[in-house]
């Protein structure tokens, strides 16, 4: 079944198939583009139309009087395509028509080449490549961009119109977008300069201007204008390249789990996603990174798009594209702010738990303090390792583990006992929540005769998030007792007061005795 329309061509009525109608309309439109600008041109078109009507009338009898697409194709063959009809006196017609096509190249969806909506077909026509290639790229991008890929597709679907008429289909294909056309763009500008100059030289203005300086300035004006356009094209190329590079970096930093050699925001070999997973649930992290991606991605895409437009000067539905991306950008920004605020609220309260342990008196008066560092695999050796302000995040077989560094201090005891005070701190949504988080800190230390072993790290149970947990160990040492600080403690000891104001890192490998006025180095 086919839909049929009734049309009137120069006074005669015809029934015509819908596709045939579209083709005919496109043909007449393309003729109109060529001739329609002048009174003379309109007359030509009227003549051609009445001839078409005549031919149709000859071919269709009353009984099966429907014009099919074949009839229209035949008509076009008989009458000739616009570029085959030479109308003007000079021989530049052909060139101009070609240029017009290039200028008018537009992105359409291709209704003759669809799997889903014709987006790929249209893109393929636009870039003069095989549609299969575009589809394959879309499919590959699913793995790189994830859901963003679908979103891009849907935006294109919504923003790009279908090529309905023949004229639109011609526009859709246009002239190839190639490097040689970039070159042509630049050459066109030079040609324009020459023409402008020639025109200007023969114009009355020029003849009337006796002043040489004014002439020179005018010529300069023409040259500068052209230079400006060429610079725009070069900027366009630069935009496209830099934009593309930033895009690749962004995508890999956000989603692909980090790419060696890319140091973005100071993160070394670590993607943002696992880092954020230390703070929040995967779902929220996903939402956050996606929003973050859009906030960064849309302006870059706009730059790339602007660049492409500067180079190829094509027409497009800028309003729809612009508003869609602006909307998406604002929504993404909103998502980031909302998540940011709600995540910040997880740090609103803080709580502290203290415990005090009595250390058995060692034989002799010396305690040996050591780190149980040998029991831990060296964290630096993991592939993904991140260390910032006591937070250490490592990836071990696809699981991310959060480690924290405890802090060890030694102070004077005001009673004869050696005491070890543990202070666990954390933040949370509420006081209660913060205290819970603090209690979940896992840490181990042990005493064996005169040796006290400290774990080099505390850990947080899996699925628990980083809430600025802190673990403070305070050794209260009575006057007259001595401690030996093993070298392994170098990362744990924190700002231990002593009479000689020795730095923490210089305190290791030495014996320290608690004197009435503070910790003193023993010989």
């Amino acid at each position, binding site marked *: 079944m086919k839909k049929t329309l009734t049309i009137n061509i*120069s*006074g*005669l009525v015809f029934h015509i198939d819908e596709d045939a109608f579209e083709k005919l309309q496109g043909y007449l439109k393309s*003729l109109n583009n060529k*001739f329609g600008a002048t009174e*003379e041109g309109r*007359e*030509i078109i009227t*003549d*051609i139309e*009445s*001839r078409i*009507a*005549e031919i149709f*009338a000859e071919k269709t009898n009353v009984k099966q009087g429907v014009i099919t697409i074949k009839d229209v194709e035949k008509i076009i*063959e*008989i*009458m*000739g*395509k*616009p570029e*085959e*009809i*030479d*109308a003007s006196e000079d*021989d530049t017609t052909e060139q101009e028509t070609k240029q017009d096509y290039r200028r008018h190249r537009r992105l359409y969806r291709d209704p003759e080449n669809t799997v889903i909506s014709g987006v790929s077909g249209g893109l393929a026509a636009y870039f003069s490549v095989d549609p299969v290639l575009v589809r394959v790229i879309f499919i590959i991008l699913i793995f790189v961009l994830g859901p963003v890929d679908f979103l891009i597709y849907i935006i294109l679907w919504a923003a790009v119109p279908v090529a309905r008429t023949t004229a639109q289909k011609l526009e859709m294909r246009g002239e190839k977008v190639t490097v040689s056309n970039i070159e042509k763009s630049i050459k066109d500008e030079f040609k324009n300069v020459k023409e402008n100059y020639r025109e200007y030289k023969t114009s009355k203005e020029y003849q009337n201007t006796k002043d040489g300086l004014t002439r020179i300035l005018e010529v300069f004006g023409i040259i500068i204008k052209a230079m400006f356009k060429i610079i725009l094209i070069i900027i366009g190329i630069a935009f496209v390249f830099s934009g593309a590079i930033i895009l690749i970096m962004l995508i890999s930093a956000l989603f692909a789990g980090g790419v060696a050699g890319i140091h973005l925001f100071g993160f070394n070999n670590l993607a943002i996603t696992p880092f954020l997973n230390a703070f929040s649930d995967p779902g929220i992290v996903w939402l956050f990174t996606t929003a973050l991606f859009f906030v960064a991605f849309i302006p870059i895409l706009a730059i790339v798009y602007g660049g492409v437009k500067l180079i190829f000067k094509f027409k497009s539905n800028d309003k729809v594209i612009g508003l869609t991306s602006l909307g998406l950008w604002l929504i993404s920004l909103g998502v980031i702010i909302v998540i940011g605020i709600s995540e910040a609220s997880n740090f609103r309260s803080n709580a502290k738990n203290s415990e005090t342990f009595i250390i058995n008196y060692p034989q002799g008066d010396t305690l040996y303090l050591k780190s149980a560092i040998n029991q831990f695999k060296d964290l630096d050796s993991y592939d993904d390792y991140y260390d910032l302000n006591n937070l250490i995040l490592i990836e071990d077989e696809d699981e991310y583990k959060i480690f924290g560094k405890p802090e060890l201090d030694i102070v004077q005891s005001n009673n004869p006992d050696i005491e070890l005070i543990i202070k666990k701190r954390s933040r949370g949504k509420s006081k209660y929540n913060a205290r819970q988080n603090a209690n979940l800190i896992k840490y181990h230390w042990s005493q064996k005769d005169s040796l006290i072993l400290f774990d080099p790290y505390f850990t947080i149970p899996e699925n628990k998030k980083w809430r600025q947990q802190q673990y403070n160990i305070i050794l209260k040492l009575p006057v007259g007792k001595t401690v030996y600080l093993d070298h392994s403690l170098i990362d744990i000891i924190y700002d231990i007061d002593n009479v000689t104001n020795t730095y923490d890192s210089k305190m290791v490998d030495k014996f320290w005795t608690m004197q009435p006025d503070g910790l003193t180095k023993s010989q």
Partner: protein
Amino acid sequence: MKLENTKAQMRKGVLEYCILSILSKGDAYASDIIKVLKEAEIIVVEGTMYPLLTRLKNATLLAYRWEESKQGPPRKYYELTKKGQEFLSELDSSWNELVLAVKKIKQ
């Protein structure tokens, strides 16, 4: 120098001459003219002729009148104006000169 361009240039000049010649034999409407030109294989696509007719008319070498038709809408009948006749006789003599000249050169 493109062959196509040269051919088109040659044909364009001759085409005007041909149209005027056809009309010198009697008034005709567009389809009649096309028929003759097509039989003589001097035009490929019909579309070429309409701009020419319009231009010749605007140069007042041709004029047209509307005539009712049995089969459809009224038709444009073209006729040679006085100016057109003079123009044609000029073209006739220059054509003969041209043919002679080319013949001479070719020998």
